[in-house]
C-alpha cells in the first residue's frame, strides 16, 4: 500500500478568524464549509461543522471557554477530515498553533518579540510578514514542553496513526535575531559573517538542547488510551539556506537534530522545503540513523519533465540515506489541482529512480495553510486517489 501523509498546516476552519475578531461568519466562509462537506460528505464532519457554526454565529467576541472550544472543534474537524479523505498518517493541521515559528517562540523565555518583518512581497506585491523574536538571555520553557496538550487532544480524537510536527532548532535559531550574542561574537571574530554564524550556531544549540529536546522527549513519551505519536516530524524549512559547500552550517544542522532527539524514542523524520539543492539535507539525513523519513518540497516549479524529482532525490541516494522518501506530490503555492494521474506518475518515477517503491510515500510539498480549505481538500483527495492508482498499478509509464 502506498502510504499517504500530511505535512503540517491546514487553513483555519472558515469562520474561526472572524469569530475571534468579533465579526459574524461571512457568506464566503459558510460557502467554503459547505463546499468541503460536498467534497467529503461524512456524518462526523457534518456534526462538527454544525457545532462550529453554532459557535461562530453567536454575536460578539468569544470568551475564554469559547476560544478553547473553537480550537478544539478546528482540531477535531481537521483530524476527521484527513481521516475521511483517506490519509494514513494524520494530525490536526496545526489548529492549536498560530504558525510554526510563533507556536514555539511564544512559549520560550529569554526572547523579546520584535515588530513586523517582511520575508517577501508576493507576485501581487503584497507582503508576507512575520514577527521575529530577539535573543536576550538564556532560553527556557515558560510553561513546560510546548506541544503536550495539543498532542493529548489529537491522540484522544484520532483513529489513524498520528504524526506530530515540531519546528526544528535550526529554523527557530536562524529565524531569531541573535541580539546580544552578535556583539559578543563580533569582539572575537574577524568578520561580521563569522560572528553571525557563531551567534546563530549558539542560538540553534540553545534551542536544540533547552527547548526542542525536552519538547521532543515529552511528546515521544505521551500515551493516550495506549496510543502514541507514531512519527515525529522535525520541520526545518530554513535548513535549505545551507549551501552545499558550507560544512560548518551542515554540522550545525546535524548537531541540532541529534541534540533535539537525544533520549527520545520514536520514528523521526525531517521536513524541508524551498530548496534548489537538497544535497546538504541528504548528507545530514544519512548521518543520523534515527531519521527514518524525509518529506521534501518537489512539485513546486516542476517543469513537467520530472527533472525536479531526480534533482531532489538523487542527493539522498548519493549520500546513502536509506529511509523513507515522502515526495512532494503536489504544489501548495497555487490553486491548480494536480491530477491523481500526474501525482502517480511522479511517484512511479521516484520509485524507479530509487529502485524500491516501498520507500516512496506521498505528501504535499508543504503545509496547506495558504490555500482555502476546499482547495486543500481537493488537492489531498487527488493525492490519495494517486496512491490507490499506484496500488492498483494503473499508472502510465513514468517517462513519456
Amino acid at each position, binding site marked *: 500500500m502506498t502510504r499517504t501523509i500530511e505535512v503540517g498546516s491546514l487553513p483555519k476552519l472558515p469562520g474561526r478568524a472572524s469569530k475571534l475578531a468579533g465579526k459574524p461568519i461571512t457568506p464566503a466562509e459558510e460557502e467554503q464549509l459547505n463546499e468541503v462537506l460536498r467534497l467529503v460528505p461524512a456524518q462526523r464532519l457534518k456534526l462538527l461543522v454544525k457545532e462550529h457554526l453554532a459557535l461562530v454565529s453567536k454575536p460578539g467576541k468569544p470568551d475564554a471557554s469559547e476560544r478553547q472550544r473553537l480550537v478544539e472543534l478546528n482540531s477535531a474537524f481537521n483530524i476527521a477530515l484527513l481521516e475521511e479523505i483517506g490519509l494514513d498518517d494524520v494530525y490536526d493541521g496545526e489548529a492549536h498553533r498560530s504558525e510554526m515559528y510563533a507556536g514555539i517562540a511564544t512559549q520560550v523565555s529569554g526572547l523579546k518579540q520584535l515588530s513586523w518583518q*517582511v*520575508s517577501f*512581497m508576493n507576485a501581487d506585491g*503584497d507582503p508576507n510578514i512575520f514577527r521575529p523574536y*530577539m535573543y536576550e538571555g538564556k532560553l527556557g520553557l515558560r510553561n513546560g514542553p510546548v506541544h503536550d496538550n495539543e498532542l493529548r487532544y489529537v491522540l484522544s480524537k484520532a483513529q489513524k496513526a498520528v504524526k506530530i510536527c515540531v519546528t526544528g532548532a535550526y529554523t527557530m535559531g536562524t529565524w531569531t*535575531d541573535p541580539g546580544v550574542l552578535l556583539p559578543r561574537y563580533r569582539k572575537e571574530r574577524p*568578520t*561580521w559573517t563569522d560572528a553571525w554564524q557563531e551567534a546563530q550556531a549558539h542560538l540553534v544549540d540553545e534551542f536544540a538542547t533547552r527547548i526542542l529536546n525536552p519538547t521532543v522527549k515529552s511528546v515521544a513519551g505521551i500515551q493516550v488510551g495506549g496510543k502514541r505519536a507514531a512519527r515525529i516530524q522535525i520541520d526545518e524549512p*530554513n535548513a535549505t*539556506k545551507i549551501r552545499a559547500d558550507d560544512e560548518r552550517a551542515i554540522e550545525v544542522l546535524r548537531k541540532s537534530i541529534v541534540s533535539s532527539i537525544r533520549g527520545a524514542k520514536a520514528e523521526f523524520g525531517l521536513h524541508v522545503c524551498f530548496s534548489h539543492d537538497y544535497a546538504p539535507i541528504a548528507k545530514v539525513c544519512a548521518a543520523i540513523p534515527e531519521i527514518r523519513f524525509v518529506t521534501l518540497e518537489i512539485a513546486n516549479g516542476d517543469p513537467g519533465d520530472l527533472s525536479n524529482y531526480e534533482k531532489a532525490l538523487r542527493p539522498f541516494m548519493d549520500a546513502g540515506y536509506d529511509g523513507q522518501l515522502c515526495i512532494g506530490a503536489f504544489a501548495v503555492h497555487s490553486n491548480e489541482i494536480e491530477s491523481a494521474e500526474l501525482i502517480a506518475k511522479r511517484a512511479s518515477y521516484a520509485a524507479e529512480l530509487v529502485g524500491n517503491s516501498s520507500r516512496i510515500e506521498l505528501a504535499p510539498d508543504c503545509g496547506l495553510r495558504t490555500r482555502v480549505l476546499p482547495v486543500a481538500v481537493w488537492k489531498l483527495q487527488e493525492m490519495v486517489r494517486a496512491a490507490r492508482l499506484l496500488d492498483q498499478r494503473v499508472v502510465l509509464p513514468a517517462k513519456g
Partner: protein
Amino acid sequence: MQAEGYIHGITTHSDAALREELDIKYGRVKRREKKDVLGRDADELIALQAKLGFKRVSDGQLLWPDLFRPAYLLMEGVTIGSQTRWFDTNGFAFTPLLDGKLSTRSADLSPVLFREKIPSSSVPKVTLPGPVTLAAHTEGAEDWQSLIPEYAQHIALLSRELRKHGYRHIEYAEPSLLLPHAAPLAHEEGVVEACRAAYGHIVHGLDATTIIQLFFGNPNSIPPALLELPVSGFLLDLVEAPIADGTKLSLKGKILVAGAIDSRSSVPEDLGLAERRVQQAVKALHPREVHITTNGPLFYTISSEPSREKLREIAALAAKVAA
C-alpha cells in the same frame, strides 16, 4: 571631515502600513488604496529624514516589492522568475527569468516612486539593481556575463529617465560582486572589465552622483581595479570587516559611502566601533567625501521599528564622524 547620512535604498514599511497592506491582501480593503497607504508611510519616512538632517532623501522605495522587479519588469525578454533567497538572509526576491532577447520596453519608474513627495530643497536619491547583480541572478542564462551589457543598457536608460525626474543621486546595488564569500564574482575572469564597460555606459553624460554599492562581502576582497570604475564613489561594507592595514585599495577623488551601520541586527549599534572603522577607512582610502549609511537595505533583514532606529543611528554616526 564632513559626513552626511542617508537611507541605503529599499526600506521596510512601518507596522501600521503593513497592517493595512494585510487588510488589502486578504480583501478586507480595496486594492486601489494601497498607494495611499504607502504614500502616507513615505510622508512619515521623508519627515523623519528631514528631522535627522539628511540632505539626500529617498521615499524608501516603499512601492518596490524587491530590488529587482521594478527594474526588470520594464524589459522585454525577461519575465518574473522564481522566489530566490536574498543572499544569506531570511528574505526572498523574485529574480528575472530569461525568455527572449533583452531590451528596454519602458524606462519610466515614476509609477513606483513618490518623487513628488521629496522636498525641492533635498537631493532626491534612489537605488537601482546593478547590471552584474541582475545578470548573476537571471535564471535561464547560459552565459550570465553576456547579459551584463544588455542590463547595463537598460539601467542606463532608467538612470537618464530618473535624472529627468530630478534624481541627482543614483546608487547601484552590486552585492553579487563580493559574493559568495568563498569566491567573489568580482574575481572571475572578465568581470571587472565587464563592469568598466557597463558603468562607463551607465554614467556617460549622466549629471548625477553615482555610487556602486558593494555590500554583504568583505571590502578587503575587492579587486583594487574595481574601485577605478568611472562612478562618483563606492559603498563599502565596514560592518563586515574594517579596512585592513596596508590595503592596496584607494578611493582618491571619490566618495566613500561607509556602510557602517548593521542592517541585519536589531541590537543598538556600537557607534564607537563604527566611528573607528569609518575613520580607519578614511585614513586608508583617502576619499574626497564621506557618506554614512547601513551596510545593506533595511528591508528583508530587520523589523520595521528597529529599521527606523537604524536611521537615527546613521545620523548619530554622521555627526560623530563630522565632529
